[in-house]
């Protein structure tokens, strides 16, 4: 992909969400089991030698190479690509968890990473306690959590079960609660790893409505998925990733052409 091929984009309005990723390269040092043991690390230093270095040295995996991405308010980007192509890594980088090795990531607006619903959920705590805790982790103040508590509790539909520990819940009930809290936070930038679908048929319907509302209000959605129909349904732009290299961002109408390419590299 060449940078010059991209159409020049107007500078974002200061009050609107935007994402700007330039030349992003992310490398993961993989610390082998051996390298994690200090004794062996010391032994390696003491022994020196190339053989040991090869055996115990940490390897580096390049997860994303030279990726460029510009998104403005109103953009709904679908990320497609094989397993291990770097979609989730890109989402995590956009969430601010990973620091770039090269290039830069700039995001304006409140980010809500809905990557893992079970994040911060403690199965031994009650439903209500988990709502409070998860809300705090998502960036709400204690007061904001209390303000939203009734609404979230009502949405879960769990009623008296909210006073019971989460571990007594069925998987579906747990998912309902996690979903209700995770989607209670208004955000400008929504990051999703697969469209979230939880609960039984009835709940799925209202969950879908809630999620759509959230997406409507958010400036930007980045959704990684293998489900192309889903991408067609919710996104207006699409980007294909291949072994850590991103294609240019194209309109959703051009998705088939993008897919037809042997490789984006």
């Amino acid at each position, binding site marked *: 992909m060449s940078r010059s091929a991209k159409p020049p984009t107007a500078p974002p309005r200061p009050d609107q969400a935007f994402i700007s990723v330039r030349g992003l390269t992310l490398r993961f040092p993989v610390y082998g089991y051996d390298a994690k043991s200090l004794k062996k690390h010391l032994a390696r230093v003491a022994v020196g030698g190339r053989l040991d270095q090869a055996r115990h040295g940490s390897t580096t995996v390049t997860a994303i190479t030279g990726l460029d991405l510009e998104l403005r308010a109103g953009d709904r980007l679908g990320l497609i690509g094989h397993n291990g192509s770097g979609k989730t890594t890109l989402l995590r980088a956009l969430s601010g968890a990973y*620091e770039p090795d*090269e290039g830069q990531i700039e995001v304006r607006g409140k980010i809500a*990473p809905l990557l893992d619903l079970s994040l911060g959920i403690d199965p031994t705590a009650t439903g209500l306690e988990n709502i409070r805790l998860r809300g705090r*982790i998502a960036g709400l103040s*204690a007061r904001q959590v209390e303000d939203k508590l009734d609404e979230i509790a009502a949405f879960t539909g769990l009623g008296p079960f909210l006073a019971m520990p989460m571990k007594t819940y069925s998987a579906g009930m747990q998912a309902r609660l996690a979903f209700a809290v995770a989607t209670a936070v208004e955000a400008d930038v929504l990051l999703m790893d697969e469209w979230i679908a939880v609960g039984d048929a009835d709940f799925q319907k209202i969950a879908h409505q809630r999620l759509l509302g959230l997406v409507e209000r958010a400036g930007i959605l980045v959704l990684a998925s293998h489900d192309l129909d889903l991408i067609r349904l919710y996104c207006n732009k699409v980007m294909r990733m291949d072994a850590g290299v991103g294609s240019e961002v194209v309109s959703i109408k051009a998705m088939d052409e993008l897919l037809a390419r042997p490789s984006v590299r």
Partner: protein
Amino acid sequence: MDIAEHMLRTGSRGFRDDLARAVDDLRRSVRGLGLSWSLAWHDVVSRYRGSILGPFWITLSMAVMVLGIGFLYAELQNIPLETTLPFVALGIVFWGLISQTVIEGCESFVQASGMLSQTSLPMLTFVWRTVLRNLAALLHHLVIVVAVIAGFGLWRTMDLPLALAGVGLVLVNVSWMCLLTAIISARFRDIPQIVMSIMQFSMFMTPVFWQPGERVGLMDVVLTWNPFFHMLDAIRAPLMGVAPEASTFSVLIVMALAGWVVAFGLFTATRRRIVHYL
């Protein structure tokens, strides 16, 4: 507490820039101290869920230890019980604060790997969580402290402001130790074992139970060069109505500064990679 409204992340632009980022992490974590406290309090509550006494179980076991060791050492060292019991009680309670914080510091980042790998929460939030959790535990154990202060009339002679200053300095010091062990044990998983051994060894080398005698020979070395002695003495001596060693507070201040420089330097150097260690 914020998930940054404006986030800029770049590749490394050298040490100065990394330092600025580390300071920014610190700044955000201090602003979000409420979150650290929520997490810490949740830890305390969930750890003792279903038990009637809750964290007071630890208080109770400490109290039993205080009584047993107090009577034994009064006998062994030929010191009246009125001095030994408060000495041992304050020793055990505040030693608990110091050693538990340092030991639990090892888990600070490892435990938070889920949150660290998918949110932009400041990393130091999880160091404060460990420190605050132990402070919450200390609040429970204050029952013992209040009991000996009241029971042995220490309130007549104690220097409370100085003792509180001691607690403050000790917290500043255990915080950098916590950060240091958090980083190193994220990278090397044997560190928690080593830290635990060091703390256990230190407990016996520090006058937690036993009263230091004359400062000659080995005793002088143990007292002068043992950082934990100074930490403990800065809190206990004022409460016992004894002036702490002249050097104690200066040692603690120097140690706090030097320790934070080292720990924060390491944090600055490794911050980008810590999430990959986990």
